[in-house]
């Protein structure tokens, strides 16, 4: 999902994930009406989100953070050993298993983003909403997070993510939704969106398109 600042991207996420109730319209997920449900109900229905600004449980260790996701999500494991194992699996997937026993407050930004992802994934969502997981990361960190998102998709989770880096979006997305002032501007495969004049006007900008043409 792309769009200029203030387009309502995060708001839409909040509505889908239950943090905000919509004033009009409805949210349906897998044939179920989930309009205005509470966030924890959305998680149980299979929708989980990450936050734009990371929100780790700071007094807990990295592992405990993920255990919250395991215990309160859709995972049905019982018993502390099994819960820990599941949490370790999620940490391994995102690549911060080595930091399992450090305090969550001590992670660097990149790893905190990974922790946020691991905690959300541990709840076993069918739909994962990622709010700017790449912002504030270096080029290399960003590439590895994008790789991680691809791996999560391969494991069978649908991902919707908000991103500003066009190269990142065009390289890994199946479909793109463009939002502008709360309205849907366009929706379709990357190739189509890239050439949509209204999208270029509102968001991408003519110079960027020209630049990309030149690069090609």
């Amino acid at each position, binding site marked *: 999902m792309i769009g200029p600042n203030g387009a309502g991207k995060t708001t839409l996420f909040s509505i889908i*994930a*239950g*943090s905000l109730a919509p004033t009009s319209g409805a949210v349906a997920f897998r044939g179920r009406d989930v309009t205005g449900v*509470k*966030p*924890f109900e*959305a*998680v*149980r229905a299979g929708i*989980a*989100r990450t*936050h734009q600004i990371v*929100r*780790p*449980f*700071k*007094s*807990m*260790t990295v592992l*405990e953070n993920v*255990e*919250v*996701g395991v*215990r*309160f*999500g*859709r995972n049905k494991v019982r018993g502390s050993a099994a819960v820990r194992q599941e949490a370790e699996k999620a940490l391994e997937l995102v690549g911060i298993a080595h930091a399992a026993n*450090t*305090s*969550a*407050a*001590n992670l660097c930004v990149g790893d905190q983003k990974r922790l946020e992802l691991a*905690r*959300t994934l541990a*709840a076993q969502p069918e739909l994962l909403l990622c709010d700017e997981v790449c912002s504030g990361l270096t080029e290399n960190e960003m590439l590895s997070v994008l790789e991680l998102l691809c791996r999560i998709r391969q494991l069978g989770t649908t991902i919707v993510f908000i991103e500003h880096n066009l190269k990142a979006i065009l390289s890994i997305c199946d479909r793109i939704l463009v939002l502008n002032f709360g309205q849907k501007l366009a929706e379709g495969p990357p190739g189509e969106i890239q050439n949509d004049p209204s999208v270029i006007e509102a968001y991408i900008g003519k110079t960027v398109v020209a630049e990309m043409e030149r690069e090609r």
Partner: protein
Amino acid sequence: MKLPADRAGRRRRGIFRAAAPLLLLGALIALPFAGLGPNGTRLLFVTYVWIATSVGWNLLGGFAGQASFGFAVFYGLGAYIAALSINGGINPYLAFPLAGAGAAAASLLIGLPTFRLRGPYFAIATIGVSEAVRVVMTNLEFTGGASGYRITEARPFHQLEHYATALVLAATAVGVSIVIRRSKFGLGLIAIREDEDAAASTGVNPFAYKLWAHAAAAALTGAAGGVFARYAAFIYPPGVFAFQTSVGILLMPIIGGIGTIWGPVVGAAVYGVVQEELIARFPQLHLLLYGIFLILVILFEPGGIVGLVRRSLQRIERARRHGGPNSASPPPEQVLRRAGSAEGRQL
């Protein structure tokens, strides 16, 4: 490096951790028989009552991070419910659970509206509720209003019986606290304390969890009020419902170490002893002392007495491992661990 030795040390510490509370409990049971006079017994009785309320408050205020200034409501309601029940001919040992249940029911009524508020707004709302209940109780005819309520029992008074009741109550409170801290419920509460919205979007139901924590805390506080009422044999609203009681209940865990298992116990012991020792000679001085304690804790050691002890132990350990205080600065890993409070909040 020396892993096996480390592991053995950790296991030894683990055994000590499990055994120390039981040894302490044994010693406290034995104390009255080892020549502790009626004054000492009374002091410990009061301390146990405070431990139960302090540990109770900590379930909500320490684990779930919801600082309530209104726990005198539960203490007072528990005291009155127990008093009315005992005078109505109900066995005292049934009256205490009744007091707890009544306070828990009241906590749900209070929690439903007040948990819609957060942080300072929640705290202010609890003050309002608590003051309102005090005024109502002061004017309630059938409990004697402001002139108080007397408990008359057919059984003779045995100080040791009261001592044992309060000790069982305090031990139960600590047990409940330990069980909750290690459970899924406790994990959810701490997630709520750290970040309520993040907890909710990880699947925790913050509203329900806060209500249950409130109820558990109120039950312990109510039972404590009941146990105190039976011992005192006379209660009156400005006593048990006093705002000062609410503040005391919240000060104990903060002084001892908020959010920990043993902090509220230590805090209650300090509070009980200080109050008893000073109240006769200088009726208002203990309030000044709590104020000083509170400022010291907030400024220098947010982890309270337990946090201070833990930090000192870590410092000693480090000095021993690295050949005394002259050796270079501690390894970065330990500096980090101290800065982040992941471990600090555990116990």
